[in-house]
């Protein structure tokens, strides 16, 4: 493929993602899609655009790249913006460069901490102490409530309050002594049920697949943001599943809030915040995370969200409408 065609591919992947994501976000709000699984479905459709639909359009409809289509049938041709120049380069070239840099920055923002955390030594098994027994008992109860086998448990005897699941092939629930001390029995059960719900949906494996998709779409900031939105949906889905299994929505909301407060909402260690890029981004990231925790707690304090009716039909209609629209965007 010639360089110009790669540029066109990247440009269309970025632009189609932006349009698809904006249309879908507008519809999610206008239709009042509240169930996390349905929100995920709509956002996965937007993510499918750069990953599947744009490559398919390039393979099956090469005539879209011709001048006749651009000048005659296209509703929008990005290359037209190259006719307007700034500092000797077309605005289209500037736009693609800026977007690619933004996409790469968003990817690195998540990839670097992820790779660094994987380099850490695996935590040991919980000791035969009252805290160890308490967490084993709560995990057993949560697993029974969800109807699944009890996964292996790892334990940090020191350090901050953490509670998460990990492992795509060998899933494990990780908990620290600080978290066990912080939460009462109902909260601990709710938080562990949330983590088990992640394992039930194979979210650790899914998150690696999504990280792979982000790697492929490193130049596409829309795709990076969409994957982050999908991760938030996965959290809310696990909230709902965990709360439904334990029957105590309030306990899970309380656990979320306590764990968030205990870690101070920090995204990284203080040393990282001193770095120039991170220091400028730390504040908005922390604020976004606080807002997200607030929304999750609010959702848990309310009733279980009602699923939208005929969701699949709506999804199909959105897909067909977007295809018709974006076919004419080159």
């Amino acid at each position, binding site marked *: 493929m010639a360089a110009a065609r790669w540029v066109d591919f990247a440009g269309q992947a970025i632009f189609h993602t932006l349009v698809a994501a904006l249309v879908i976000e507008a519809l999610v709000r206008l239709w009042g899609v509240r169930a996390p699984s349905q929100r995920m479905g709509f956002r996965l459709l937007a993510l499918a655009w750069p990953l599947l639909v744009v490559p398919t359009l390039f393979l099956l409809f090469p005539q879209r790249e011709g001048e006749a289509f651009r000048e005659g049938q296209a509703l929008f041709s990005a290359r037209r913006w190259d006719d307007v120049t700034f500092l000797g380069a077309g605005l289209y070239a500037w736009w693609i460069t800026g977007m690619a840099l933004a996409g790469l920055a968003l990817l690195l923002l998540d990839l670097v901490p992820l790779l660094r955390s994987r380099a850490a030594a695996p935590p040991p098994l919980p000791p035969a102490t009252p805290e160890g027994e308490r967490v084993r008992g709560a995990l057993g109860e949560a697993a029974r409530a969800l109807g699944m086998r009890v996964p292996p448990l790892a334990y940090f005897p020191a350090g901050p309050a953490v509670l998460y699941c990990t492992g795509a092939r060998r899933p494990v629930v990780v908990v620290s002594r600080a978290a066990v001390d912080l939460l009462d029995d109902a909260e601990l059960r709710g938080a562990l049920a949330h983590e088990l719900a992640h394992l039930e949906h194979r979210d650790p494996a899914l998150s690696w697949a999504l990280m792979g998709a982000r790697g492929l779409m490193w130049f596409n900031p829309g795709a990076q943001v969409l994957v982050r939105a999908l991760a938030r949906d996965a959290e809310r889905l696990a909230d709902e599943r965990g709360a439904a299994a334990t029957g105590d929505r309030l306990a899970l909301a309380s656990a979320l809030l306590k764990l968030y407060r205990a870690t101070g909402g920090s995204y990284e260690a203080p040393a990282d915040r001193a770095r120039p890029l991170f220091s400028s981004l730390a504040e908005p990231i922390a604020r976004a995370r606080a807002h997200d925790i607030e929304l999750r707690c609010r959702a848990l304090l309310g009733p279980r969200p009602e699923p939208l*009716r005929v969701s699949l039909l709506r999804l199909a209609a959105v897909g067909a409408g977007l295809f018709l*629209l974006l076919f004419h965007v080159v």
Partner: protein
Amino acid sequence: MSEPGVTAARRAASEGLRALWTLALVLVGTAALLWALDAVPGWLRGEPRGVRRASTVEEAERQLRARLMLPAYFPDTYRWPPKAIRLTRDEGGSVALAFDARDGTPSLFLAETVGGTGPLGAGLLPEAAVIQQQRAGLGEGSTLSRIVGEDGTLWNQLEWTAGGRHFVLRGRGPLEGLTRMARSIHGVVR
């Protein structure tokens, strides 16, 4: 169907219609936004959709991926290089070169297609009203027209097809000079 069943079916139908209406509104709104976004570069440059500018003949040739056929005979009453070069790339591509006279008034247009003998790209030449037309001696189908330009003055316009291209030569000067230029494009200067 029972009364509650009918009510539920009506409610579902109304909800479905409302959902479709919302989807249509969002898609039409997005299409309108994209259309406007597509038109902005043209508005900024003051050109109709599809018309681009080139700063030199060589750049126009690069954009069109074709050599332009230019007159070998070029009276010194006109200024070279062209004052403006505008082109379209649809229908195989076409280009229009605008020349000023020595006194700086717009005086000559040469337009040609580069990918076939179809019509010239829309918007390449200024609007003009034909007031008289007759056959010209530049081959079958060639015409000589008297036209009124945008500035209200009379121009001569030759239009012919040769070498797989469609040409239009429009000028204010004497018809003899215009015809001689037209013939020189194909290497025949008389």
